[in-house]
């Protein structure tokens, strides 16, 4: 009887769409390579360019045969989630995020979100849940000249015995954290921002 109850409890939820809550929490004491650059005033603009028609969709739960059995969704605006994460990291490292309406700034990050997705794969002994966040980041100066463009990807993989909603939420938040980490330590992005600094456009 317990086995039947357990089977119902563990399999029933697998077919119901899940809801995830996405958030980035920068640790105040953790600095990144961004802290090696003289403080800049940076405008951050994020555009959601994911190919998914349903913008609430952020993942699929699949069964062992590769068929999608449930979707993972979020009520949040992903462009806003990513923007807040990047601003959090910049401010944590001594930079200032300026509002969209501001016309005075040192650099602009023009971010195109290409993918924010989690998927489960049933393997022999476990279920692997992979979260990926990919975006193109253009760095522009005050004159709207492109300084550099980089594709940044953050991935996070977890091995689970059961891919519950929490697993999808964890890998999506993990991918967001890795994306921000990769952005803040990317040698080309750091060099580009440092170059802007040396021009002396900081107000």
């Amino acid at each position, binding site marked *: 009887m*317990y086995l039947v*109850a*357990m089977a119902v*409890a*563990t399999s029933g939820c697998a077919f119901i769409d899940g809801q995830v809550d996405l958030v980035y929490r920068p640790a105040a004491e*953790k*600095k*990144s*390579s961004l*802290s090696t650059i003289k403080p800049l005033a940076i405008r951050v603009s994020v555009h959601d360019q994911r*190919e998914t028609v349903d913008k609430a969709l952020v993942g699929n739960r699949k*069964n*062992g*045969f*590769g*068929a999608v059995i449930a979707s993972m969704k979020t009520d949040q605006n992903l462009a806003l989630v990513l923007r807040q994460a990047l601003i959090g990291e910049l401010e944590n490292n001594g930079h200032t995020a300026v509002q969209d309406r501001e016309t005075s700034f040192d650099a602009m990050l023009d971010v195109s979100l*290409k*993918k924010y997705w989690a998927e489960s*794969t*049933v*393997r*022999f002994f476990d279920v*692997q849940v992979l979260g990926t966040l*990919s975006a193109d980041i253009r760095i522009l100066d005050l004159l709207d000249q492109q300084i550099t463009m980089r*594709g940044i*990807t953050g*991935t*996070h*993989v*977890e*091995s*689970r*015995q*059961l891919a*519950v909603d*929490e*697993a999808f939420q*964890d890998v999506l938040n*993990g991918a967001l*954290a*890795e994306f921000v980490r*990769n952005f*803040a*330590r*990317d*040698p*080309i992005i*750091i060099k580009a921002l440092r170059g802007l600094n040396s021009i002396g456009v900081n107000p």
Partner: protein
Amino acid sequence: MLFFRSSVSCLAFLSSLAACSPTTGTRLLADRSSLTRFSQLGVAVTKNEDFSIRIAREQEPNPGALIVGISGAAGGLVGALVGTAIAAGIDSAAGQNADSRVAEPFSRDLASYDPVGVLSEGLVTELATEKVFPAVTGLPSDSIPAAHRAGIDGMLTVNIKQWGLRLCAPSANNTKVQAGLLVQSRIVVVATQDILWEREELYMDGECHDLQQLSTQKRSVRTLLSNAIGNLAGKLVNEIRFP
């Protein structure tokens, strides 16, 4: 009493199913001062595999695996579990074969390409430029006794688990690829062999390219890989400076 015991067993079982182990990211955290305390750092890079392309393995499962899986499922609960496992195995093997066929012409051209040497040189140069350690030496192997004999007190070991081209955004019809490396990095205290810091990451770099176009410009694949490995070296040094 029996109900209580059974309930506890069920809860324990369900908890074990929900347990997780992250397989990427910074697995072992350390602060900056403990990582950069060494007077002479040895850098050893190794690799597990040759060049690979991962397209089929990241796309949809193949129909053959699905049929085997469904046949297994017809056998009841045990059949479903075995069928699922076999389907996953077949799918993985079929994807690997398809990817190997696509990678073959690239592999021939990259036979003399040495990602270990490129990454090792990149790391030594970046670490020296950023002055993270007083002295940095490239090592031919990750042998700790050999490093000890050479007077090295700390060792950065980087194992390239996979390197090659990967799908930019996995979907059924997309074959655009970019350079990708799966690497495991560690900093080890040579005297005690303690691992101070450990990180595993899938590093994707550069723009997405059409695989067909790359197949006609094979030299550009070398450039793509070398740029990616150079950027990875800079990124790893930044990871050590800001763990």
